[in-house]
């Protein structure tokens, strides 16, 4: 359970996130034909309210791309892109931002990033993690992040967030990539690495 995650377990999750987001960054780079810089990922186990704060300013308007994750480790993938970043991504893909086609192109970016990240995670842990259909919405960061976290946290109060930041070199575009595993699935990711919780 994420309530009892040790530093060692968080380190292991960070390493999983590092490798998986590296794979995702490569896919994005191939899709856009641009270099993509990747920040060192974070693995955070935080109370719900703090987890929202960790994602950014709750009053900021962002575009969120969300994918449900099903399989052995259910949860959600959430990408957050500030408005200028969303406009940049759309123009790199040759579509008009803020339109239905623009949103669908952003959904496709979510698809590519989510699928390659989850694939990498799957092959490292032997667990199945399957991406759902991407949904795109532009709203307050707090409303987007809290709504997704409310479902993944359930009745505990600790949210596990694996996040990485992807920057497209030379463009004003930072994509915040988050994997939010449901409370009960985390141990399944840790067990294959030998740092699982033997109790559960």
């Amino acid at each position, binding site marked *: 359970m994420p309530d009892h995650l040790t530093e060692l377990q968080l380190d292991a999750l960070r390493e999983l996130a590092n490798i998986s987001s590296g794979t995702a960054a490569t896919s994005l780079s191939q899709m856009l034909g641009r270099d993509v810089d990747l920040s060192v990922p974070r693995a955070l186990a935080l109370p*719900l309210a703090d987890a929202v704060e960790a994602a950014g300013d709750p009053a900021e308007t962002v575009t969120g791309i969300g994918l449900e994750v099903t399989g052995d480790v259910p949860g959600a993938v959430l990408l957050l892109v500030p408005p200028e970043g969303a406009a940049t991504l759309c123009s790199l893909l040759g579509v008009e931002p803020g339109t239905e086609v623009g949103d669908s192109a952003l959904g496709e970016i979510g698809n590519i990033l989510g699928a390659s990240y989850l694939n990498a995670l799957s092959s490292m842990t032997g667990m199945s993690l399957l991406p759902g259909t991407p949904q795109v919405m532009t*709203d307050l960061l*707090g409303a987007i992040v*809290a*709504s997704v976290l409310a479902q993944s946290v359930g009745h505990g*109060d600790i949210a596990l967030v694996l996040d990485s930041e992807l920057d497209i070199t030379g463009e004003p575009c930072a994509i915040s990539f988050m994997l939010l595993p449901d409370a009960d699935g985390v141990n399944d990711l840790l067990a294959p690495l030998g740092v699982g919780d033997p109790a559960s």
Partner: protein
Amino acid sequence: MGELAVAGTVGDELVAIGLGSCIGLALVDRAANVAGLAHVVLPDSQGQQVPRAKFADTAVPELIACVLAAGALRRRLEAVLIGGARMFSVGASLDVGARNAEAVREALGRERIRIHVEEVGGNRGRTARVIIGTEITSQLAGGPRTSLLSFGPQRPGSTLRTVGALR
């Protein structure tokens, strides 16, 4: 999120920014200039005790106790509900927003608290503001503030007091 706050001084402001599927529940005693705001995340605590404001069934009694402690009178309490939108259907893919709104209404019904107004549903996030002595507003991202309740000069509490004096 899962937190609550109470204020009892004119001009004080309570804010819940970015309510998606969550509910901002305000309880107000306009005559006493006392109000509380809870940020409710999920409908049912299923026995979980903390944080109490996180779940509709535990948040309502907790918020009532807090506003009464700050000087509100129970019979003058009015409720305002803001939020409960259907955002992403990621995860359990059930409409958490609607279930939250329903659970808050039920909990208020059990406590016999009147709902003054609701601004719930839809698929966009809202920001709730309670400004003591002035008004309660709801605001969509990038939109104007909509006034849902005005503290105003005519307070139901003062009318009740007059009725009492005439008897």
